[in-house]
């Protein structure tokens, strides 16, 4: 009850205390969840990374050995990291840009756009296992529908998933089918841009492309920041599609870092090693995200920002 009339010092003290406490109360669900469900496993996995930790049997402390083997002995560590980076370089920009284009295109309240939106979201609705089965049918070299269609056009399609030169691209395309989610996020963001801005710009004869660059993108930048960061994260955590579609092959051309972790944990049962892998991946994503976040002050525009530095009442 912040409207209470302040009568004496004690109650003012109390009032200020509550004021100070309020933000923490708002974020308390997450804090509690973090303490209950995340912190423990996090510490546990950190400790685990210094152990030789088979799923069953004896667990022995090995110090930094897991990190050492990973960085110096195991060629797959660097290979898989490089493949993941290559994937991210394609996936992140395409996911954000195509998502943005679709969102802008479908932001018109014209007949039929609702149906189109639903269509583009369709692949996001299908669960991973089924989606991969579908892609396997599409990409199949001899019996696939894609090469069948290309064949009708007189083109001999490549062995999409069997040729190391094409496989990564095939995975990128399959992953981009999920951009309906990005589209929807940006579409939602577009709704909070005041229509008046566009009307004014239109009246003064600003062309459509300029409206996109000078109004839409800046006003949408908080949401764009979100999609960039979450795209980076999902690029690094890319697993299901490659695991089920190519199993990392052919010849490890789609062996992503997340699959490296997965194999160490579930194929080789080396939980300690997998934990060490995970911590390295965690740090890489964290650094990348922080870089993006730091850069965001230059390109993200917040209508309602509460900068901690310009603290008003404390």
């Amino acid at each position, binding site marked *: 009850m912040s409207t209470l009339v302040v009568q004496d010092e004690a109650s003012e003290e109390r009032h200020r205390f509550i004021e100070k406490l309020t933000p923490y109360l708002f974020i308390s669900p997450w804090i*509690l969840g973090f303490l209950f469900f995340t912190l423990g496993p996090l510490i546990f996995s950190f400790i685990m990374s210094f152990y030789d930790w088979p799923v069953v049997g004896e667990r022995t402390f090995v110090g930094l050995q897991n990190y050492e083997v990973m960085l110096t002995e195991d060629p797959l560590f660097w290979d898989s990291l490089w493949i993941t980076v290559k994937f991210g370089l394609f996936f992140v920009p395409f996911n954000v840009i195509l998502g943005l284009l679709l969102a802008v295109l479908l932001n018109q309240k014209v007949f039929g756009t609702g149906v189109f939106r639903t269509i583009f979201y*369709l692949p996001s609705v*299908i669960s991973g296992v089924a989606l991969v089965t579908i892609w396997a049918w599409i990409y199949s070299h001899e019996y696939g529908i894609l090469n069948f269609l290309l064949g009708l056009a007189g083109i001999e399609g490549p062995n999409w998933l069997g040729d190391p030169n094409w496989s990564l691209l095939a995975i990128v395309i399959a992953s981009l089918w999920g951009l309906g989610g990005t589209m929807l996020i940006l579409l939602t963001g577009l709704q909070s841009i005041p229509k008046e801005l566009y009307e004014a710009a239109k009246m003064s004869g600003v062309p459509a492309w300029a409206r996109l660059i000078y109004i839409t993108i800046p006003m949408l930048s908080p*949401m764009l920041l979100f999609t960039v960061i*979450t795209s980076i994260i999902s690029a690094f*955590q890319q697993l299901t599609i490659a695991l089920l579609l190519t199993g990392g092959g052919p010849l490890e051309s789609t062996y992503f870092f997340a699959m490296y972790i997965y194999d160490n*944990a579930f194929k080789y049962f080396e939980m300690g090693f997998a934990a060490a892998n995970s911590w390295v991946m965690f740090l890489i994503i964290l650094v990348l995200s922080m870089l993006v976040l730091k850069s965001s002050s230059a390109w993200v525009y917040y209508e309602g920002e509460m900068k901690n530095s310009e603290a008003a009442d404390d």
Partner: protein
Amino acid sequence: MTRALTYGALLFLSAMFIIPFYWTFITAVKSIGELYQFPPVFWPDEVMWDNFVTAWFKQPFDVYLKNSVIVVILSTIGQLFSCSLVAFGFARFKFRGRDAIFVLLLSTMMIPWDVKMIPLYMEFNMLGWINTLKPLIVPAYFADAFFVFLLRQYIMTVPIEIDEAARMDGANSWQIYWRIHLPLMMPALVLVGTFHFMNAWNDYLGPLIYLNDQSKYTLTLGLSMFKGLHETDITSIAAITVVLCIPPLILFFFAQRYIMDGSIGSSVKG
């Protein structure tokens, strides 16, 4: 002219997005004979509608449906409440440690599940939650980082003057959250709800790890049961996949309409 071009491009793109779904559908209704034919059959001679019924009754899918619905509804409610509170906290207050905590929150999105799995299992086991739906529901009441981040970004596009005006009129923080921001972020909340619905509906790993008894299984787990170690029941997978797509698609169709029409943002601003 441009309109025609736009529609053309949209139609082409949608064809590419629809084909996978269409393929699943016709696979579901094909007879075994046509399933393996090449060149592929684009419309089966005989549409086997029975395949849906057969697949559904191969496993107790009615039980799975009940479990899935319980998980999805209860966890979505939790996610909407907790995330909107937390996002509001991060977007509209200044407090000691805010930026550091926010980075911590973001970083929780980046932890690979592989290594969290065993410790989390241990924890749920100690709580006696294994083989119950609780591990799939309760954590949703403690705000998922992805959605908090999303909502925070959305709230931050709302001009701060709105809050200030309300405070002048004597509203406290809770009232500003409840009366002003909750309605304002409705489109984003619908978005979060849709996303979470989809995640919970399609979640495979969580149910696989935490549920033991078939009477506790969810739909996705049942679907995966058609894929054994050596042989796969393709027709049943396709049929159940089609069925499982329908509720999220209907939800999505209405959600996107709401997001588009229910945009109050523009009327408050300007």
